[in-house]
C-alpha cells in the first residue's frame, strides 16, 4: 500500500512525537508561526481528528468498549482518512504539513497495550515517511507534573486505565506512559527521530527545531524563500 510514498510531492511533512505533557504541541505551534512568517504555506493536522470515526471513537471510549485491537484499528482508520484528505493532497500541492503525532504514536501506544509490534507496523505500512520526526523526550515525572498542573484530570485511555495497571489514575498514567516512553526510545534509531530534550526551555527547544527544519528546506533545493 505504498501508493503515495513514491509519487512526486513537493511539500514537507514534519511530525512531532512524545508522550502527553512532553511539550510537543507547544513546539509545533511555534514552528507553524515561524514557517508562516517566512512565507511557507502550512497546514496542521492532529491525531484522532477525522470526522469519519469520531462518533465510534467517542462512544467506544465513553462506554469502555475498546480493546487494544479495536483501539488501534479506529486510530488507523482515522489516520488513513486524514492521510487521504488532509495530508497527501496538500503535500502534492507543495504545502508543508505539520502533524501533531504520527504513526509512531500508534506504534508506541498500541504496543504498550499489548498488540503485536509486527502487526502494528504492517498496519501502517501505507503511510509515507515524514521528512522530519521530532521526538520530545521528557522523564515521566516531568510529564505528570505538567499534566496535573495544567488540567488536573488525566484521561482514562491516556492513563492506560483500560489495562488495569492501577486503579489510581496518576499511578496508572505513570506506568502506562512509562511503557510508551520505552517504546519511543526503542524506535528512535529505527525511524531516525530527531530527539529534543523536552526539559530544556521552550525557546531553546524551538531554536533547535527551527534550525533542523531550515536545513530541511535548503537541503532539497526546494526552499520557498527562506
Amino acid at each position, binding site marked *: *500500500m505504498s501508493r503515495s510514498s513514491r509519487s512526486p510531492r513537493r511539500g514537507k511533512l514534519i511530525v512531532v512525537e512524545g508522550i502527553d505533557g512532553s511539550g510537543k504541541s507547544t513546539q509545533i505551534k511555534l514552528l507553524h508561526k515561524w514557517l508562516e512568517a517566512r512565507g511557507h504555506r502550512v497546514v496542521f493536522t492532529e491525531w484522532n481528528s477525522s470526522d*469519519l*470515526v469520531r*462518533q*465510534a471513537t467517542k*462512544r*467506544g471510549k465513553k462506554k469502555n*468498549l*475498546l*480493546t*487494544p*485491537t*479495536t483501539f488501534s*484499528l*479506529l486510530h*488507523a*482508520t482515522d489516520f*488513513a*482518512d486524514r*492521510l*487521504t484528505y488532509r495530508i497527501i493532497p496538500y503535500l502534492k500541492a507543495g504545502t508543508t504539513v505539520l502533524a501533531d503525532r504520527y504513526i509512531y504514536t500508534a506504534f508506541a501506544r498500541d504496543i504498550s*497495550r*499489548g*498488540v*503485536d509490534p*509486527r*502487526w502494528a507496523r*504492517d*498496519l501502517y*505500512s*501505507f503511510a509515507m515517511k515524514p521528512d522530519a520526526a521530532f521526538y520530545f523526550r521528557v522523564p515521566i515525572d516531568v510529564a505528570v507534573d505538567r499534566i496535573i498542573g495544567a488540567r488536573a484530570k488525566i484521561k482514562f485511555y491516556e492513563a492506560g486505565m483500560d489495562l488495569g495497571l492501577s486503579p489510581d489514575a496518576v499511578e496508572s498514567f505513570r506506568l502506562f506512559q512509562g511503557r510508551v516512553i520505552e517504546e519511543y526510545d526503542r524506535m528512535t534509531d529505527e525511524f531516525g527521530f530527531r530527539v529534543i530534550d523536552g526539559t530544556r526551555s521552550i525557546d531553546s527547544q524551538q531554536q533547535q527545531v527551527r534550525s533542523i527544519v531550515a536545513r530541511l528546506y535548503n537541503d532539497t533545493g526546494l526552499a520557498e524563500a527562506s
Partner: protein
Amino acid sequence: MTPGKSGARYLGHGLPYTGIEDLKGTLITIEGTDGVGRTTQVALLKEWLEVQGYGVIETGWTRSELMSETIGAAKAGHNLDRLTFTLLYATDFADRLEKIVLPALRSGFVVLADRYVFTAFARSIVRGADPAWIRSVFGFALVPDLTLYLKIDADTLVPRILRTRGIDYWEAGMDMHLGTDLYESFRKYQWRLIREYNRMAREFSFVTVDATLGIEEIQARIRRPVQALLEDRRMRALSTSLDRLRPLLFEAEDDDTAESGAPSAAGAGSASVSEPADLPARAARAPGRD
C-alpha cells in the same frame, strides 16, 4: 475439551494478549458474493443445529456494536477510499471477534459467521490493495473450523439480483468507476469478486457448494460437512472425557496409579487437600478411596 487441544489458530500475528487454548466451540463461516443466498442458508442452518441441541450464535458483517452506525453513515456518504474502507471493516471485525466470537467459542457455542475475513480480502484486492497487507491486517482473526463457500457465476447472479432486490451502489463497485451504468459496473465488479473468491477457495480449503441449486438442496449440501465436523468434535470430546475417567476407574483398585496417573484427576485430588468443600464430590466419584 482439554485446554491446549482446541486446535484454534490465528490467521496471522494474532492477539498476543488473548489466549485461544481454551476455545471449546466451533467456528463455521459462510462466504460468497452479494445476493448469493448466504443469509437464508445461515438461518436454516442455525434452526437445524438448535433443533439438535447445539447452542448457536450468529454474527454478520458490519453488525458490531462499535462500528455498524459509522459504516452505514460512511457508505451513505460514498466518500470512502479503499484504505479507509478496509480499515473500517477490520475494526468492525475485531470488535465482533473479541466481544462476540471468542467469548461464544469459549463457552462452547457453534458460531455461524455470515461472511468472514475472505469478504474483506476479496473486496480490498479487487480495489487494488496489496494482498500481503490486507492479510496481515486481519492476522488477528481465527482460522475457521469450516468455511462454506456458496459459489455462483456472475451471469447467473446478475438477473437474480435484478429480480429480487435490485442493485446497490457498493455491490456494484461504483466507487471503482468500472463503467458508467450501474448494470455494467455491477457485472464487472461481481465477476472480479467471484474470481477472487474462487482463488481463495483453493488456498484456504473452502467447502464449495453450488449456489445455483435450490434452497433446500444447498442446505442439504451444507449440512453434510457441518454434521461431519461436529460429530468429529463430539467424538474427540468424548474420548477426552474417557481419558479423564480411566484413572478414576483404576483408582478404585489401586491408589498409587490414581495419584500418578492423569493430570486432570490428580489436579482435582491435590486441590481437595486444601479445600475440604471438594471432598464429598470426590468421594462420590471414587468411593473405593475412603
